[in-house]
């Protein structure tokens, strides 16, 4: 186990390094200089030179990368060109909001998806199975940003039950655990939960069907175990994979929330990323993507380790 742990961590390091190279390169595939968008068009050549030196854009790429990477390791992701504030502080606040949203969405998606998948796998080829399969196809096919819009149309525009945008009353972006704030998370969380729901349902269905077809289940039944007893064993066997899927989906939602956050003006990392793109705030773009991708990499690692700790048979290479 220890060997596996070390091996898995060592394997993650080059991937993480590669990810940071990709994030760094993003700025340089952009057309023009990263500064052209912020400097006034009539800025003097001298001012341009000075700014370039200040941001380090006059150095060779590898040197820029090493400097950026070294600082990133210390938690310094540079300064936002648009606001002049540090990227890290902008990110920390947005990350909190995205975590809240993604956690709610994962919970809803996992409970519902797990339920559908379990029932479908338990009663294979029944009416319920077909219904659940259809639901999961819909879940993976629906453009979630459109679903968000439709929910806003129904529950905000038409019925007026729930707020359409923001994370709190008056457009505040500070989260609190009260109904005034929770009200704002309902629609975006339900919209987002559709993304993992279909995948979770599919996975659990296949998992349960597979477990039920194994010999030990027949053995349990032959021992005279009632359905509830068999059920318990199925849950126990399905749990590690189910947890892994849940962890990965959570990471995926953190990084993939931009479209939903845009629809609902949810002040999270996706929203921040959108702003960074349209203000051509490249340090902010770079930093946000780096943090989100690293989150995904680390979560992948944790999921792997937890999964193999629960079930030593699974040691993914």
């Amino acid at each position, binding site marked *: 186990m220890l060997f596996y742990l070390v091996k898995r961590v060592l394997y993650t390091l*080059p*991937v*993480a390094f*590669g*990810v940071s*190279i*990709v*994030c760094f390169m*993003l*700025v340089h*595939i*952009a*057309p023009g200089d990263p500064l052209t968008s912020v400097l006034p068009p009539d800025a003097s050549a001298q001012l341009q030179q000075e700014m370039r030196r200040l941001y380090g854009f006059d150095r060779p790429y590898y040197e820029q990368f090493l400097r950026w990477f070294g600082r990133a390791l210390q938690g310094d992701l540079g300064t936002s060109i648009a606001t002049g504030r540090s990227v890290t502080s902008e990110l920390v606040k947005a990350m909190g909001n995205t975590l809240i949203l993604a956690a709610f969405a994962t919970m809803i998606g996992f409970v519902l998806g797990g339920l559908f998948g379990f029932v479908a796998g338990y009663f294979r080829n029944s009416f319920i199975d077909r219904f659940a399969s259809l639901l999961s*196809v*819909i879940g*993976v*096919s*629906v*453009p*979630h*940003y*459109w*679903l968000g*819009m*439709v929910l*806003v*149309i129904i529950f905000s*525009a*038409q019925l007026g039950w729930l707020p359409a945008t923001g994370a709190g009353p008056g457009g505040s972006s500070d989260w609190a655990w009260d109904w005034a704030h929770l009200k704002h998370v309902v629609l975006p969380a339900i919209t987002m939960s559709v993304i993992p729901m279909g995948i979770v349902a599919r996975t659990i269905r296949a998992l349960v069907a597979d477990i039920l077809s194994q010999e030990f289940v027949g053995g349990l039944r032959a021992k005279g175990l009632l359905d509830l007893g068999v059920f318990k064993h199925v849950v126990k066997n399905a749990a590690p994979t189910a947890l892994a899927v849940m962890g990965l989906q959570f*990471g*995926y939602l*953190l*990084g*993939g929330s*931009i*479209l939903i956050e*845009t*629809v609902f003006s949810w002040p999270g990392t996706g929203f921040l*990323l*959108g702003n*960074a*793109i*349209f203000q051509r705030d*490249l340090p902010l*773009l770079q930093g946000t*993507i780096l943090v*989100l*991708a690293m989150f*995904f*990499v680390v979560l*992948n690692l944790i999921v792997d380790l937890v999964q193999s700790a629960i079930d030593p048979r699974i040691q993914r290479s």
Partner: protein
Amino acid sequence: MAATVLPVPFERSPGYWANVWRRFRREKLAVFAGCVLLAILLMAIFAPYIAPKDPTFGTMLRRLRPIGTPGFPLGSDELGRDMLSRLIYGARLSLFMGVVPVFIAFFIGSVIGIAAGYIGGAFNMVVMRIIDVFFAFPSVLLAIALSGAMGAGITNGLISLTVVFIPPIARIAESVTTGVRKLDYVEAARASGASAFTVVRTQVLGNVIGPIFVYATSLISVSMILASGLSFLGLGVRPPEPEWGLMLNTLRTAIYVQPWVAALPGLFIFITSIAFNLLSDGLRTALDVKD
């Protein structure tokens, strides 16, 4: 009485593709999805003949009309353009942006994956680790990051989506090729002295291309959603071009005035995407691909 000798009916065994077609036809839902996609494709091709109006011409006097207005069967948008015509024309760019990246990625990803799988060793190691790096990004994030950095536009959108789909396709191609490579008949072909290229072309390709293709078709639905999503964000297709994702974006402000007109483009994305998913599921069954 002379016994009549019945001629033995000559039965040709149906070929592989005939069998595939027979199995596919049995998947009612997939056949239906195929028909829907065919209709959407025809709609895209013959848009100039079907669309009742010019999709880019609008008049501010007739903006945001509800569904069923005479002259505007599906209403009009925020600039008074005919929704029906725009939705019909929108099929062109939306399909193009959704399907093309997957096809390019299918070719590039297959070449990379088959090469890595067949050559193996250190080459495989290096290629697959690079693929892993791109895999470390959630696909939505990578697509948006790339086109966000490159700027809006159809070409940039196509490039970023292609980059997003190469790693998963290459990974599948690599794993099926690695499996086939060890089989006896491939070993035999190699022992016969055939060049690597010939072995891949004659022995490997036919056995790996099916699973890779089925996997690629399953990505089209994701690609449709992502491509329209880019336009929805203001990346990808630029106005006044009719494209479903972009229409959804520009109509967002109208959800309090004409909610159902505003929601229409998304319905088209949804229908296309679900049809591709069902078709891909049917293909999987018909080609008997196990995952």
